[in-house]
C-alpha cells in the first residue's frame, strides 16, 4: 500500500528526471494540441521517453492514440498556426521545440528522417523513384545531379531493389508494394540519418515482405548505429525490432519499459488487453481472443481521471479515484514505468492469477 500512496504524489517519478539531456533523443513532457472548431484535440498529452543510438523504441497503441502525431511532432512538421506544441525534444543535445522552423528543417531528412506507412500514397505519383531520392539527397548535400543519381542507385541496391540502375527511372506505380517501401526506406536513408522514425513501416505489406523489411531495418541500424523509433500497432513487429516499448493510450504513455518486461511482466490493464488481442500460433483455435471492450476515447473529450478507466476491467477496484485523478507514470522497478492506480501488489497479483494464464 505504501507504493499506492507514492503513486498519487509522485510527479517527479516520470520517465525522465530533471537533469540535463543525456540520451541521444530525449523527449520530455511532449504535448501536441490542435485547436479545432469542436474543441481542443489533445493528441499527445505529456509524453516522455528516451532513445539511444543503436537502440530501437517501439510506440504501440490503437489508432488515434497519438503515435503518428508524436513522430510528426519530433520531425517538426506541425506549425504554430494549427498546432500547439510544448515540452522538450532534445536530439543529440539540441532542443527542437523552441528551435526555429528553418533550423528544424535543416535537420529534417538529414539528421532525422522518416519512413511513412502506405508508400504508394507517400511517394509522389508524377516523379520517378530516382528523382525523389535524388531530391532528398540534394537538399542537404551540394552534389551534382550525376553524383546524386549514383547515390540513388547505390541506395536502391542497398535496400535490395534488383537492377537498381534501371529501376531508378521507374515511377512509384511501377513498383510492387514491398519495393515501394524499400524505395521509401532508401529515400529516408539518403543522408545517413542518426534518428530514423518508421511509422507503421509494414502495415501495407504482406507477411513475407514484412519480415524482409524488418530485417532490412535491423541490418541498416547495425551498419549506421542509428536510433530507431517504430510506430506500430502490431505487437509482432515490436517483438521483432524493439529494445524499449511505449504503450500509448489517449495521447499518454500507459506503460514504458524494456521489451521483455512489457511482454512478460506487463503491469497495465491496457497492455494486458493489447497482448490478449494477439492471435497466437501456439494456441488452440477454439480459444477466443480477449479483446478490449469499447472504443478509444475522443481526444477532445478524454475521460477525466485515468483515460482508460471506462474500458478497464479493474478500474472499479480503486474506489472512484480512477474517475478523478490522472495516474502518473511511476517507476515500479528499474526501467519499467506504469501509469495505473491499482496498488502494485494487486496489479501483479491480478496479472499472475487472472491474466497471464489467458495470454
Amino acid at each position, binding site marked *: 500500500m505504501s507504493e499506492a500512496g507514492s503513486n498519487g504524489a509522485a510527479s517527479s517519478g516520470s520517465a525522465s528526471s530533471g537533469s540535463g539531456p543525456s540520451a541521444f533523443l530525449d523527449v520530455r513532457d511532449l504535448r501536441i494540441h490542435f485547436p479545432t472548431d469542436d474543441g481542443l484535440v489533445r493528441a499527445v498529452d505529456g509524453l516522455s521517453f528516451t532513445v539511444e543510438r543503436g537502440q530501437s523504441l517501439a510506440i504501440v497503441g490503437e489508432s488515434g492514440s497519438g503515435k503518428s502525431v508524436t513522430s*510528426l511532432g519530433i520531425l517538426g512538421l506541425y506549425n504554430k498556426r494549427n498546432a500547439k506544441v510544448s515540452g522538450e525534444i532534445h536530439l543529440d543535445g539540441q532542443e527542437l521545440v523552441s528551435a526555429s522552423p528553418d533550423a528544424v528543417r535543416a535537420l529534417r531528412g538529414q539528421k532525422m528522417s522518416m519512413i511513412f506507412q502506405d508508400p504508394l500514397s507517400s511517394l509522389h505519383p*508524377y516523379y520517378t523513384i530516382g528523382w525523389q531520392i535524388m531530391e532528398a539527397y540534394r537538399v542537404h548535400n551540394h552534389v551534382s545531379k550525376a553524383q546524386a543519381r549514383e547515390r540513388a542507385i547505390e541506395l536502391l541496391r542497398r535496400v535490395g531493389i534488383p537492377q537498381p540502375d534501371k529501376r531508378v527511372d521507374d*515511377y512509384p506505380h511501377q513498383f510492387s508494394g514491398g519495393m515501394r517501401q524499400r524505395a521509401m526506406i532508401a529515400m529516408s536513408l539518403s543522408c545517413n540519418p542518426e534518428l530514423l522514425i518508421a511509422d507503421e513501416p509494414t502495415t501495407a505489406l504482406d507477411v513475407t515482405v514484412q519480415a524482409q523489411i524488418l530485417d532490412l531495418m535491423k541490418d541498416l541500424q547495425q551498419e549506421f548505429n542509428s536510433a530507431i523509433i517504430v510506430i506500430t500497432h502490431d505487437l509482432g513487429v515490436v517483438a521483432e525490432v524493439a529494445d524499449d516499448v511505449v504503450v500509448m493510450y489517449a495521447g499518454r504513455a500507459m506503460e514504458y519499459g524494456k521489451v521483455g518486461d512489457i511482454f512478460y511482466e506487463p503491469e497495465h490493464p491496457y497492455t494486458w488487453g493489447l497482448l490478449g488481442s494477439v492471435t497466437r500460433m501456439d494456441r488452440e483455435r477454439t480459444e477466443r481472443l480477449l479483446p478490449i471492450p469499447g472504443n478509444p476515447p475522443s481526444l477532445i473529450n478524454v475521460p477525466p481521471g485515468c483515460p482508460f478507466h471506462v474500458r478497464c476491467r479493474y478500474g472499479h477496484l480503486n474506489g472512484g479515484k480512477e474517475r478523478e485523478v490522472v495516474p502518473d507514470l511511476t517507476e515500479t522497478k528499474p526501467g519499467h514505468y506504469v501509469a495505473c492506480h491499482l496498488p502494485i501488489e494487486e496489479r501483479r497479483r491480478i496479472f499472475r492469477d487472472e491474466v497471464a494464464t489467458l495470454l
Partner: protein
Amino acid sequence: MLQYIARRLILVVVLLWIVSMVTFGIFFLIPKATHTSTAALFAGKAPTSDTIKEIEVKFGLNDPIPVQYWHFVEGVFVGRDYDAGASRDHCPAPCLGFSFVNNVPVWQEITSDLPVTISMAIGAAILWLLAGTAIGVLSALRRRSFFDRAAMGVALAGVSLPIYFTGLVLLSLISYKWNILPNVHYVGITQNPLSWARNLLLPWISLAFLYAALYARLTRAGMLETLGEDYIRTARAKGLSEQRVIGRHALRAALTPIVTIFGLDLGQLLGGAILTEYTFGFVGIGKLSVDAIFRQDLPVILGVTLFAAFFIVMANLIVDVLYAFVDPRVRYS
C-alpha cells in the same frame, strides 16, 4: 502511343462522319417542317417557278437524300461542280456548298470568320489560365484569409454573371464613359497587331473573367486536396523548403485536372463564342452560326456544326495525349 493516336484519329473521322450525316438531315427535315422546298429557301423571296427548277437541277435537290449526301461528301474531298446548263459554278475542295443567302462558298465564309473566333478564344484562354490558377493557388495557400474570401467572392460573381452583363458593363464604362478603348471592332492581326490586341482586350477580359472565376475555384479546391496528400508530407519530411514543396510537389499534381478542362473549354470556345461575339459586335463563327439559323441558311449551319464538332473532338484528343505526358500513370496501349 503513336498507335493510340492513329486509332483515335480514325475515331475522330468516324465521329465527324456521323455528325455530318445527322446534321445533313436538316436538308430533309427543315423544308418539310416549314412546308417549303430547299430550293425555295435558296432562291430568296418570291421566286419564279423557273428559278426554282433551275436551282433544283443545279444543286441536285431532286436527288434522293443519300445521293445528295454522297455529293456533299464528294465535294468535301475532291471539290464539286454545280452545273445547270446556263449557270455553272465550281466549288473547289474542301467544298461545303454555297450559302443560300449570299451565294458565297461556305468554306470561305467560315475561314474568313474563323480568325476572329480564334483570336478571341486563345487570347482569353491564356488570360484566364494564368489569372485563374494564380488566384486559386494563392487562395489555397492563404486559406480563410481576407484575400481568399475576397477572391472567392469575386469568383462566385464571375461564375454567376453572364457575359453579356460583364461585357456590356465593360463596354459602357471603358469604351463609352472613359473613352479608354473607344470604337471596339475587329482588326486582323496581320494588319496591325497592336490594334488587334487593343480591340480584343475587352472581349478577352470579359470571357476570361467568366472562366478565370471557374478555374480559380477549381485550382483552389485541387490545391487544398493536394496539400493534404501523404506525398506532400513526405516532401516536407525530406526537409524541402516550403517554396519547393508547393512549387514542385503540390502544384504539379493540383494542375493536372486543369489541363483536361482547359482543353475542352478551349475546344468549345473555338466553335464560336456566341454571346461574346454578339456583345462586342464581332463577326466570328458564333455569330455566323446564329445568323445562319435565323436565315435558315442550311449549308452554313452544316458547315459551322462540322467545324465546331471538329474542334471539340480534336481538343479531346489533344487533352488525352497530353495527359499521358503530364501523368506518368496514364499509358495508352
